[in-house]
């Protein structure tokens, strides 16, 4: 069973995304902080990572950079989830090393299909 790492501090969002991922047959591992997320990304080597940008402590930009700097995990897809995008966020997300991004609200019915389209899976 493929693992997906979800780094998200909001429990409601985490549960919602988890429902959608589990429905598509993924094992969900999660972290509530950026630091924890970077550790899990390196140790667990997930199939892809869903990264909330707005995190306590180090934010999603910083966490993404650190994951990309770890040579072993340099190629894991990282999908960013943002709240309503502000000017320049898009560029910053891509510059930090994300594979793609989705704006909230997340539609649990379509989000995994969209990620698959983005990653070219199936």
């Amino acid at each position: 069973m493929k693992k997906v790492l979800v780094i998200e501090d909001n429990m409601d969002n985490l549960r919602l995304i988890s429902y959608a991922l589990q429905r598509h047959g993924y094992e969900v591992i999660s972290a509530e902080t950026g630091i924890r997320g970077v550790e899990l990304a390196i140790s667990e080597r997930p199939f892809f990572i869903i990264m909330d940008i707005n995190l306590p402590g180090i934010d999603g930009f910083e966490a993404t950079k650190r994951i990309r700097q770890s040579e072993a995990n340099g190629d894991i897809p990282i999908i960013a989830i943002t709240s309503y995008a502000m000017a320049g966020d898009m560029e910053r997300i891509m510059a930090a090393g994300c594979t793609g991004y989705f704006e909230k609200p997340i539609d649990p019915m379509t989000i995994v299909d969209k990620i698959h389209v983005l990653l070219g899976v199936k």
Partner: protein
Amino acid sequence: MPESTTKTVDELARLKERARILAQDKSYLQLIINLMNKVSAAQGLDNMIEALLNNILDVIGGTNIILYYRIDEDLYRADLFTKQLKLDRIDDDLVRKSFDSGEPQEVEHDFSDTQMLTPEFTMAYTWVFPLLAGGEMVGVIKLENLHIAMRKLYSELPTFFAYVASALKNEIVGLTRLEIAYDRVSEMNEELKLKIEERTEIEGKLLLASDELEERVAKRTEELRNANEQIRHELEERTSAEEALRKSAEEILDLYNHAPCGYHSLDKDGLFIRVNDTELQWLGYTREEIVDVKKFADLLTESSLRLFQDHFPLFKAQGCARDLEFEMVRKDGTILPVLLGATAITDNDGNFIMSRSTIYDISERKIVAETEHLLSAIVQSSNDAIIGKDLNEVILSWNKGAERIYGYSAEEAVGQRIPMLVPPEQEGELKEIMAALRRGEMIEHYKTERLRKDGRRISVSLTISPLKDAAGCIVGASAIARDITEQVRAEEDAVKLNADLEQRVADRTSDLVAKGRELLTSQQALMNIVEDLNAQATELEKANARLQELERLKSMFIASMSHELRTPLNSIIGFASILLNEWLGPVNVEQKENLATILRSGKHLLTLINDVIDVSKIEAGKIEVRPEEFDLYDLLTEAIQYVVKDIQEKGLALHLGIEHRRIFTDKQRLLQCVINLLSNAVKFTKAGSITLVSSGSNGPPDGEAEDLTRQETSFVIITVQDTGIGIAEEDISRLFQPFVRLVSPLWATIPGTGLGLYLTRKLTVEVLRGEIHCQSTLGEGSTFTLSIPERLNEKGTGN
């Protein structure tokens, strides 16, 4: 700066200019007044002219001041170099013109040939001004080569020259013929008085001598007669006495012959029978040529002859004649005026034997009489009143001048007393005058008032001299009164003129002070305005700061709205979807309906929040424009994905006329607009079709050519057409306003935020730099046309 402030500044400048001119005028007027004071301080005509010329040059400038003036009929000229030159005629054209016309003359002339002048002073100005006093031409003043720039300052000069004219006239009048005549009269009077006294004395002596002679002759005759008697009685015995008698007769004869008067005797026919040497000498004849040859009548002028012929028979009858004046003709033909007295010698029967006549040479007395006549004529012809009075102030003589000045005729005045001419309050003065006269003092040019017969008061200048008799006793006085009413009035006028000028200076000064106060008030007002403005500026700054703070709060509010509102909505929508799709187990129909309502409401709320945030951003100018290059076909296809499900559910037909076109604009915002238009079309269409068409264009679809840059731009036209309920024509204009939900029974059930078209239009115009239009027929459908520039430049404007 506000308009009122500008106005005040202008006003301020104007007031300052006005104050400067007033100050200048004032000092100029003061100069004129000083000038008048200097001129009036000068005593006598010469001094006055000198003061006039020097001071005018000092104050007014120019190269020379020339004064032409008249004394009687004589014309004089004076300037700074020549004093009082008598002229035969005026040699100056301008001056002559002014004399003839009584008008000022002025002429500008080139002055460049004069070496003394500064370069800018090449034009000069010569002004000739008539000096008119009471309508009488006194003279003309010529100001040569005045500075042309001073011209506007000469406006007060006419007033000054009127004053000069009056002053000049006063001085000239002091030198008139009357004055000279009066002096002559006084001199002659004195001289003649002396002569009269002398003559009277001589005459008295003559008469005395004559009487004595008569007496002696009579006495001698008596003595002779007695002696003759005695001789006849004593002839024989006293022969020696003959010799004594003869001597006595010779003595008598000598006396007869050499008396200081003429003696002669005429017979009854008027023939000379005896004549003394004195008379012969007077007449230039020898005794032989006269005695027994000439009749008295032969030696008379024609008029005297008539007198003689009248009187001689009378004389012979009456026996005497007295004080008859005859003009005798000398041998050389000249006239000898004589006064003749005669007695007749008769015989015992009373028959005329001969006359015994005495004649006096009165040729000198004649001259005196003529002189007296002349004197009298002069006195009579004088314009001044010349009045004789005794010590009791009784009027003794009254000339024509007195009649004219006082209004009383000579008949009325002579015998009256002086006090009738004196105003009541001046009676004390009259007593003083009389007291001075009694002391033998003379009163000269005493200015006072007198009363005319008609009651009018006149100003007079009095000169009163005591009159003395032959013995030197004061017996009366002669008074000469000159009417100076006009002169006094002229002086008063001059004083008044001066006072007027002073008043005008005072007026202008107070005007100036008032203007100064106005100026201060204006300055104060200005300062108040500035203070107000400062206060307002401070207020504005504060308000601005508050607005900026509000703006910052608003941005913060928008950002937090975006996060805080979406997060719970994310959960509502997400979990409702999961339940509704039975991921967690089956739900019954009723539960599904409820979950669908939660989902629908959540989505509606999310749209509303997104719209509100977009509108806020646009209105705050905070919206970002992110142009990118993409294919319009892909964008339109994506937009359709959002509504295709609803179209299928409603059973509507979808017609597409879209083409591939690379465009460069804000993709997300264009997508948002197209989705909005499509959503509306689906929402308001129950049956029929939705048509989406895209095309290119070289200009805006409505052909407006107001903007040249836009005309050259290529445009993309996107049209969304439906067969829905349509919009009433009157509502189309309100369509793009915020929170407009058009009133229609068909709309009542259709949900909407009321911000959709408002936001679409805002995005189209302000982000995409395009236009949006709507054509619609109620009940048939609507067409929305979006036209945007094909390429939006990086700054967010069309190309």
